[in-house]
């Protein structure tokens, strides 16, 4: 059973959001341990670029493993303010430390996110 930290918010597409997802705030985004485990060994992360506009529920990148490729969805709407450059050399971090060093990008929200799940609700979707 994978870890679902209480302090994070989640999307139905298996992204996590750290920080208050309010308009004007900056949040950090990654994929859940559950999603990383399903993908297997992640060998390439194509994240959005700094300055890109992302929209909640829309594809903004992709995750490639030896077994499969999966689209990366943005859980929030806003402007990308940072991407995790260390994933270029160490994409496997997304799997080995999904909620820490495996973060993927940061977003400054243009609108408050309303569709996110709390840990309990997300855990129920993957049970």
């Amino acid at each position: 059973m994978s870890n679902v930290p209480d302090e994070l918010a989640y999307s139905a597409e298996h992204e996590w959001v750290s920080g208050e997802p309010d308009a004007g705030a900056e949040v950090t985004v990654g994929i859940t341990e559950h999603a990383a485990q399903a993908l297997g060994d992640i060998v390439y992360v194509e994240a959005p670029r700094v300055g890109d506009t992302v929209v909640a529920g829309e594809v903004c990148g992709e995750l490639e493993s030896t077994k499969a490729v999966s689209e990366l969805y943005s859980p929030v709407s806003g402007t990308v303010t940072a991407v995790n450059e260390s994933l270029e050399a160490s994409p496997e971090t997304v799997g080995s430390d999904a909620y820490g060093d495996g973060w993927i990008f940061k977003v400054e929200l243009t609108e408050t996110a309303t569709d996110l799940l709390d840990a309990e609700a997300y855990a129920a979707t993957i049970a």
Partner: protein
Amino acid sequence: MSDAILRSPLHDQHVALGATLVPFAGWEMPVRYTSDIAEHTAVRTGAGLFDLSHMGEIAIRGEDAGAFLDFALVGRLSALALAGAKYTMLCTPDGGVIDDLIVYRRDHDHFVIVANASNKDVVVEELAARVEGFDATVEDESAQIALIAVQGPLAEGIVARMCTRGDDDIHAMKYYSTANVLLQGDIHAFVARTGYTGEDGFELFVGADEAAAVWALALAEGAADGIVPCGLSSRDTLRLEAGMPLYGQELTRETTPFDAGLGRIAVFGTAAKPRGDFVGREALLKAKVEGPDRVLVGLVGDGRRAARTGYAVLDEAGAAVGEVTSGAPSPTLGRPIAMAYVPASLAEPGTVVGIDVRGRREDMTVTALPFYSRAS
């Protein structure tokens, strides 16, 4: 046929090892135990242990067993030496591939055919339909037999140590030959030096009720060599690097052995070594004479995004001219690799083609197969 999911006799072992189990050809099998790349690398550098109990085992017995297989399959199996093994195919009268098979000769009148799990029932039905008039029987023994593979450069020592009788035979076996040995006291095993990984290795056929003991024995005897249980995901990248076709991807009823670059397995006979009629002969001879209009090629990419099954191959102008059959980031090469059908005009090694990777073009270069060959 029941829709119930089939379980390997090693199911409990997989669960205890923490395997991720997935549906595969009607079975629930391990896709991985820990890490696809670690499992792949173990087979390339040490040893990996695979449960292949989902594969089909079909016994052919009778005085006409060899003659029957000569008629039913594209190879001349009657010429197979005792204890030998041969890669061959079952084709339709039109020359399309029904399944690719390994045939083992256990005696002059006894062969064992290993078929893909997804095709096993069809293969049994086809063989049963073709056996009429021959003094031979076709028996599906899949449920009674467990198939366990030990693959990798350290496999020989591990399998020899598993034997209580026959360890000398293991050391003496050539690739694509077989032996009968005893494991852990009195467990009878039919052992073949074959595999689907591009490495040296062995496949052990044992009774389903003895699978658990043999699995545990392989883990125990392989422990000092770091043997790693391996799932279907690593099996797929291993065979892809080795340029080995997979039924349903490189091989289908719409492809002939010639399309897949495997025309050599269709044996038409010569004046000195004549061969009689076989199912698909006329169509396959035509395919040989005319040559395929599409060619199975290897592709290597410089980028990071991998081509996957079903993606279009694009010519210089961006027109779809072929299709990717298998593709993945190669753990050994560290680059995306793929197999694809392309027109003969684009099949020359060094040719650059485009792949439509989810709407964006990625260039890949045609390369000779296999992508990986073990040092011999």
